[in-house]
């Protein structure tokens, strides 16, 4: 039976993004359809949180997510890498912290 993972989604504020974060998330969702359900980062019942930052400064306060698996993408390339990482994970009990 396929278990769909729940991952929280948190954007940075987008003051001067170097790429289109919303499009990048849309692409991630397309590639991981059926594998991952993205929900609000405020949902406590998640396996981890994906932070989508518009540039390498990644100024989101990560202390909000201490102790939880966390991935930070700061570019389209990072977003593609995240998709590959999730696809490679098989039958793990939890997701590894990605930072």
């Amino acid at each position: 039976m396929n278990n769909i993972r729940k991952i929280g989604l948190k954007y940075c504020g987008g003051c001067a993004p170097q790429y289109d974060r919303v499009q990048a998330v849309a692409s991630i969702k397309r590639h991981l359809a059926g594998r991952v359900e993205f929900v609000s980062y405020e949902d406590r019942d998640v396996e981890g949180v994906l932070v989508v930052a518009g540039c390498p400064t990644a100024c989101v306060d990560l202390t909000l997510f201490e102790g939880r698996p966390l991935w930070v993408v700061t570019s389209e390339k990072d977003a593609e890498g995240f998709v590959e990482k999730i696809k490679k994970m098989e039958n793990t009990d939890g997701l590894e912290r990605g930072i």
Partner: protein
Amino acid sequence: MSLMNAKQYEESLRKLHFNVWMFGKKIENVVDDPIIRPSMNAVAATYEFAHYPEYEDLMTATSHITGKKVNRFCHIHQSTADLVKKSKMGRLLGSLTGCCFQRCVGMDAMNALSMTTYDIDQKYETGYNKRFLKYLEYVQENDLTCDGAMTDPKGDRSKAPHQQDDPDMFMHVVEEREGGIVVRGAKCHQTGAVNSHEIIIMPTISMREEDKDYAISFAIPADSEGITYIMGRQSCDTRKLEKGTMDRGNQFYGGHEALVVFEDVFVPWDRIFMYKEWDFAGQLVEQFASYHRQSYACKAGVGDVLIGAAQTIAEYNGAQKASHVKDKIIEMNHLNETLYCGSIACASEGHKEPSGTYYVNTLLANVCKQNVTRFPFEIARLAQDIAGGLMVTLPSEEDFRSPEVGKWIEKYYKANTDIPTEYRMRILRLIENITLGTAAVGYLTESMHGAGSPQAQRIMISRQVNMNAKKKVAKKLSGIPEDE
């Protein structure tokens, strides 16, 4: 109440009963007035974008009073991270609206009051800070927009408030009653005044004991009895009355300013945050001004729009590969990012005040604003250079849509044949709007004079640099004895 959205904000304004005048007439429906509406849209954007996940991290914060999520415009800065996010939020909104979105003045007033009220209490054992925090909680719970009102008409600049021939040239108390005070005066250049739920009054200069009747700060509902708003004109304002919308440039957003007259307005005691503590007037002015000078990161956002428009028109004209055009775009970006640098720097170098509020580095805030008094003018000049003279000779939309002559405009004003003539016209109108039209009020002249005119920053820079330290290092390196 949770965060309002744009629709809820609009409905909240409809419940207010402003006394607003424009072009010699009282405006009965302020929210839907075609000249005022774009400015309401801009403030509404500060509400709506707080609900977008991709902007929420900048647009919202956690209240230090209630622990609830609040719009950042209602937040008191609790860290340098908060100060940096405020700068970033300003740039974000400037780029999303292309104009002055008006809500920052109230935020800056509240942050300054959070510190000054605390310090007054420490010296005089008053209760202003507790009163202010109760007011702040009310603002946060109801997600209100506050007009931070500082600038008095000032009359004869060579005379102190109490020396003016007309005592109303600076706002002052005229009567004390059991429940509060009565005030008289006016505040000029009030950004977003009729898009605000509340108006927060502050003194405009430091004062002496003889001026104590003028050393007042308070907050009241923006539609209180006795308040009259007289709308300021803006370049190209009546284009908003025309049938089409293309000639406005910015299709959605704009700003406004008003003269706000107080004719014997009653203010209850629980809304008063400074009353005759004249020795703190200067502190409140300086603290508000420093925060507000930081706030000009918004112009980097408007600059993003203008630079984007300049690049677009270069492409539409087929001139984008010319080396001088590329270099002009580089220069525009250099200047624009330098503006942003100043706002980020003063925020990053902020510190915690005794009240607990985080305050910007005032030297760097003044440097930031001094740049803002200059660079938008050069960025605008370069945009006009790239756009070409057509920007100011373009026929009207009505002519473009005319069955008789529209075809000539369509034919002769097409440049890049892949691009519809209408698009070329639209982007030229946007550049015109920001550099000459209604948005130039905010992008240019307000950049010059808002939060203090250029000389005000130069005085502050002069006061705050440590010249003795600079002389010391120069003498040391050149072999001059330190005490010479």
